[in-house]
């Protein structure tokens, strides 16, 4: 393997044979690899790096199509607007709050569901499929479906509350700040708890059974076994699930756009919807670019924090 190719190939052999020597084989192998991998890399660069740099450029320029002239250097004015337009900061607070609450709720319930589904029982396959369907349907479905469920006239929620003579039966859920948040949270959780459960379930299934048996022989309680055996070994799966969910929750758009469009007023406004409005309602690609840059930095920070936290805990 280490023989130099020109030494390995006896002089006088045709060039073809020389090309088959280990060294050029390696080179050939590499070239083959680059050739096959190139399209994916190029396409992904075109649809991520290009928007990234274009947003950065726009964010430092005046690119408001409804207020030409375009293209003048704008300095930091688009970034300053983030703090002066009375929309970005509240939207950031809403989004961060929603992310913390939704991810916590979905993780706890998803984990409980995953543990339940990891047990053997009859009909497990059917139960799994039933619980998994909400993840596979489009977010538009979950949003419209819960909009129907919470509708004062057509909805199930107010109907049941009324039948049971409970309070809130005449609530117009999407017209009040906190009830609107509750409806958004439920629509989001309904679709994403299954995702959490599926990823965590896969993590549970790679934990060797011997460990549980050993814990049993040692007389550990179920609760203790869960915290001492299950949780530490579930960490890799938990990290994957948490990163995915935190980022997608932070970037929530569809459900908010469809259920409330940020209303009533701007009380359920979130960052992605604000960004969408800046881009395609106001056609201000400079300010939109600034919001997008802020979003990209925050998304990167979230991912970095998770990787950091889970890495440092590993040796313990």
């Amino acid at each position, binding site marked *: 393997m280490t023989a130099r190719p020109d030494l390995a190939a006896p002089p006088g052999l045709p060039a073809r044979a020389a090309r088959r020597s280990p060294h050029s084989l390696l080179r050939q192998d590499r070239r083959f690899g680059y050739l096959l991998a190139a*399209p994916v890399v190029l396409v992904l660069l075109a649809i991520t790096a290009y928007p990234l740099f274009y947003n950065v450029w726009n964010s430092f320029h005046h690119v408001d199509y409804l207020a030409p002239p375009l293209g003048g250097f704008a300095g930091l004015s688009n970034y300053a607007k983030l703090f002066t337009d009375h929309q970005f900061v509240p939207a950031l607070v809403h989004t961060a709050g929603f992310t913390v609450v939704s991810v916590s709720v979905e993780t706890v319930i998803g984990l409980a569901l995953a543990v339940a589904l990891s047990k053997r029982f009859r009909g497990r396959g059917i139960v799994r499929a039933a619980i998994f369907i909400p993840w596979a349907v489009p977010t538009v479905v979950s949003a419209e*479906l819960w909009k129907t469920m919470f509708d004062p006239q057509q909805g199930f929620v107010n109907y049941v509350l009324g039948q049971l003579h409970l309070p809130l039966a005449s609530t117009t859920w999407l017209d009040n700040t906190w009830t609107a948040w509750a409806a958004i949270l439920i629509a989001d959780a309904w679709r994403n708890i299954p995702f959490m459960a599926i990823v965590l379930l896969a993590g549970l299934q790679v934990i060797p059974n011997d460990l549980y048996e050993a814990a049993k022989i040692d007389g550990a309680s179920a609760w203790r076994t869960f915290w001492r055996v299950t949780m530490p070994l579930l960490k890799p799966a938990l990290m994957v699930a948490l990163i995915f969910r935190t980022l997608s929750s932070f970037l929530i758009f569809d459900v908010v756009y469809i259920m409330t469009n940020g209303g009533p007023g701007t009380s359920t406004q979130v960052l992605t919807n604000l960004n969408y409005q800046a881009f395609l309602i106001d056609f201000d690609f400079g300010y939109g670019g600034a919001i997008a840059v802020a979003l990209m930095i925050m998304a990167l920070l979230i991912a970095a924090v998770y990787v950091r936290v889970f890495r440092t805990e590993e040796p313990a």
Partner: protein
Amino acid sequence: MSAASEVAPPRAGRAQRRITPGKTGRRIGFFLLLALFVVASLFPFYWIVVTSLKTPGEIAKGTTSLLPSHVTWSNYANDLTQQNFIRPLVNSAIVCVSATILTVIIAAPAGYALSRTRMRGRPLVLGFILVAAFFPVIAMVGPMFIAYKRTGLLDTYPALIISYLIYTLPIATWLLASYFSQIPKELEEAALVDGSTRLRTLRKIVMPVALPGVFTAAILSFILAWNDFLLALSFMTTPNMYTAPVAIVSLGQSQYQVFYNLIDAAVVIISIPVALLVIFAQRRIVSGLTAGSFR
């Protein structure tokens, strides 16, 4: 294990040890919990199906019962004819199927290259693909809107097909790389020794073995593309080009009233393909979703 032995009171000896009241209680609690999850997952579907089967008259009266009093298919007929919902369905199908095929065509070779060749920069490429998977899609909207507008691609299928690759390519490439790495190397080595070229070996020997992985990547890609709302909302500007999810939101919307019967009929229609995929390919989807994600 039979239902009878669970319900029967503990008698003596062995039975007593096995079925203590605490254990039975826990079993009942366990199944109640599962039942709760199943109902919470499926009941909302029941509700939209019921709403979609109500006559406009019944809709006007508001909810008075858990069942529809007159079942009518008129909302579906109305959606598919007057509301012209077939066009967005066709648009969605064309865009999602094209994006899926394109994804498989370029992700499969890349997955092979990343797991089977000694190309340099492998960790870099994999890292970049991972970062791309987390790229905030909203950041694409502004710049790509301008780019599509300038190139005349705005409001066309290609614009959306290209854009959908942001959803599908990272996960498909990642999944296929991990799938290829599980295929025994000896298989292709034998073919290469027999004088087959690299590309031919890949096409004729490796790909057929990798077909289940390719199939999984295709299913996942289709679901992710079918799920999109934001990009279609941004890049499809005329109702004729709307995809189904975008069309639903503007369906039967008047200033004074929301026609839930029409919306929910359309919601039921677009849920059917993915519900079928989940029922028939659940294992595949789940394994694809979690492939190589924690190693």
